[in-house]
């Protein structure tokens, strides 16, 4: 066990995967010598050389399009998109090609890759260095979407993603890249995809969160506990396919549900979770499910801490929901 932050844990996972399997290739803007703008790929260029740790031209569409070809060949590309805000030039390749390759070829081809990209706000990044675009990928059949919140999960889930036969969007909550620290085992291990973690038990209300907002949910749960309300906090970890059993079991226990995410509310992932819970546990719900999310505006700069669904917004939602009759 070593203490690591998320940057180190992800770096460690990449190194392990690359040592083990020479089909694994890292590619993207600035991933080489400089080791990524967040240093996540630091040192890989020195160890694996520029054929496997590739600084590419400035084109996300080119990165993902070429990665598809590599995947068809049998490599396991792990492209980095420098900020998830810049993934849209590659959206056509992801939606029309990556997601559909296995299906549309009747299973002859797959376009298996792990697309890593930092997500989320709270780093004074404004419009284009803060967004959290999971909904636009979860809606697309054929993709898996992952968002770990801590170093242990980040390493184990990245290794699981690389081993997984399907394409994975691997979202890294950059606000806690360095702030989230923890013990991480040396060497290889995996945290299974599609498994959520109940990170705090409670009987009054279920709070679902992921990525950086998990810590806000935990903070709010702590404060709620001081007022006698016990919130159960679930870290989704894998967003899609979601661990529906853990969610439903929790909601059946608490009868109340709060979902926290940074992305705008409308058509955000929260709306899917509300709908799933309504489908599967409607008669257990004792209060309307509540979404505490980013607002339906572009991501603001100066007011980002007002925009984000931080603890000060989650706490009243917990209290009100727990007390609703």
């Amino acid at each position, binding site marked *: 066990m070593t203490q690591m932050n998320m940057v180190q844990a992800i770096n460690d996972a990449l190194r392990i995967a690359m040592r083990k399997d020479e089909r694994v*290739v890292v590619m993207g803007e600035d991933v080489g010598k400089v080791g990524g703008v967040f240093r996540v790929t630091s040192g890989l260029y020195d160890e694996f050389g520029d*054929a*496997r740790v*590739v600084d*590419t*031209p400035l*084109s996300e*569409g*080119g990165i993902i*399009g*070429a*990665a*598809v*070809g*590599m*995947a*068809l*060949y*049998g*490599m396991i*590309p792990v492209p980095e998109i420098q900020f998830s805000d810049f993934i849209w*030039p590659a959206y*056509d*390749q992801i939606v*029309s*090609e990556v997601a*559909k*390759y*296995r*299906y*549309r*070829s*009747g*299973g*002859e*081809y*797959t376009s298996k890759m792990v697309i890593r990209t930092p997500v989320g706000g709270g780093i004074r990044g404004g419009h284009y260095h803060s967004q959290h675009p999971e909904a636009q990928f979860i809606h697309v*059949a*054929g993709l*898996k979407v992952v968002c770990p919140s801590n170093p242990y999960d980040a390493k184990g889930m990245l290794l699981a993603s690389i081993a997984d*036969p*399907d394409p994975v969007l691997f979202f890294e909550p950059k606000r806690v890249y360095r702030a989230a620290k923890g013990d991480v085992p040396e060497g290889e291990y995996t945290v299974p995809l*599609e498994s959520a973690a109940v990170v705090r038990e409670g009987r009054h209300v279920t709070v679902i969160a992921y990525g950086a907002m998990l810590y806000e949910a935990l903070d709010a749960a702590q404060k709620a506990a001081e007022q006698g309300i016990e919130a159960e906090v679930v870290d989704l970890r894998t967003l899609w*396919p979601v661990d*529906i059993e853990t969610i439903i079991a929790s909601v059946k226990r608490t009868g109340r549900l709060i979902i926290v995410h940074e992305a705008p509310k409308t058509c955000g992932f929260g709306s899917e979770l509300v709908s799933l819970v309504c489908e599967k546990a409607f008669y257990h719900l004792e209060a309307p499910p509540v979404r505490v999310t980013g607002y339906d505006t572009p991501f603001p700069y100066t007011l980002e801490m007002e925009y984000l669904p931080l603890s000060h917004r989650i706490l009243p939602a917990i209290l009100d929901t727990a007390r609703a009759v």
Partner: protein
Amino acid sequence: MTSAAHESIYTAALSDDDVVRVLGPDGSLDARNDPGLSPEEVVHLYRHMVLTRLVDDRLVTLQRQGRIGFHIGSLGEEAAIIGSAYALRKQDWLFPCYREFGAALLRGMQLERYIDNMFGNANDPVKGRQMPDHYTCKAAQFGSVSSPIGTQITQAVGFAWAAKIQKRDLVALTYFGEGATSSNEFHNGLNFAGVFKAPTVFLCRNNGWAISVPTERQTASRTFAEKGVAYGVPGVRVDGNDLFAVIAVTRDAIRRASAGEGPTLIEAITYRMGGHSTSDDPTRYRDKSLLDPWADRDPLARIKRYLDKQGWFTEAEEQKLRTEIDARLRDVVEAAEKTPAPSLESMFDDVYASLPWHLREQRAEVLAGPRAPSAHH
């Protein structure tokens, strides 16, 4: 932009000095670029071009009869497609646009499977999931036909680049129309191939049209080949209706790529003699007279004249070939048409490697629904 201007571009295109041409009007071969095919090879390729054309014919008829939903063919472009595919070595790969079934068949795709795809039946290689003419054939090292224009270009580059990283001698050839040169993918594909010297051959079928949009609306560059300059990728123009010339330039590009000299952009100048697809009515935007100069340059007729001159293929052989193909097509179509549709539950396979819970639920819903084979309605 008048159609006169458009025509003149074409006249110019074909008289330009920089266009590689081997098969002259008199049926002679220009020794400078002659690929040196044996009589057997020429006959083989001619037979294949005839097959391609007859398949096209038949599919258009089937569509008109409402027996298949759609077809997008290669009428007039057979030499560009079959010549370039023939130039590939065994280990090379092909990343298609949507008009290259002739290449797929040449590289080993079974006619049966192709026709199954036209019917989207249970034997269709893509399990009836895509439109007609959208198939795959991994056994033939032939990629996956997709509708979004250009996506295969960047993918071919990634494939070739991967082979290079793994030090395999393998070239990826990708097809696209001249319209696709306007896509993001052309730009990304050429740029990445240039920077990483990915062993790729870019085969642009300049057939004059992107549905109703003529070439001069696609770009202000003088030629499509010279777009390679922007990427440090050599470009070459070839008479796309000249089987020999197409083989020669493609072979050269493959040799260069294989030797580590990097990618090549080939502009094969040809003409779309039919509509864009069975959904299109070209008379709405294209004067029929525009076809006249191209009728003379028909790629099959040119080879036929050459064969006649050489005496390598008799009229009787021609008749026999056509009769055989007709009969074969009748059988294959009949079999495909009789083959049932893919099963209801197959709709949920292959989205992921295995079925996640939500697709299991959705499949169960369908199988419990009124349309399931077990339903008693």
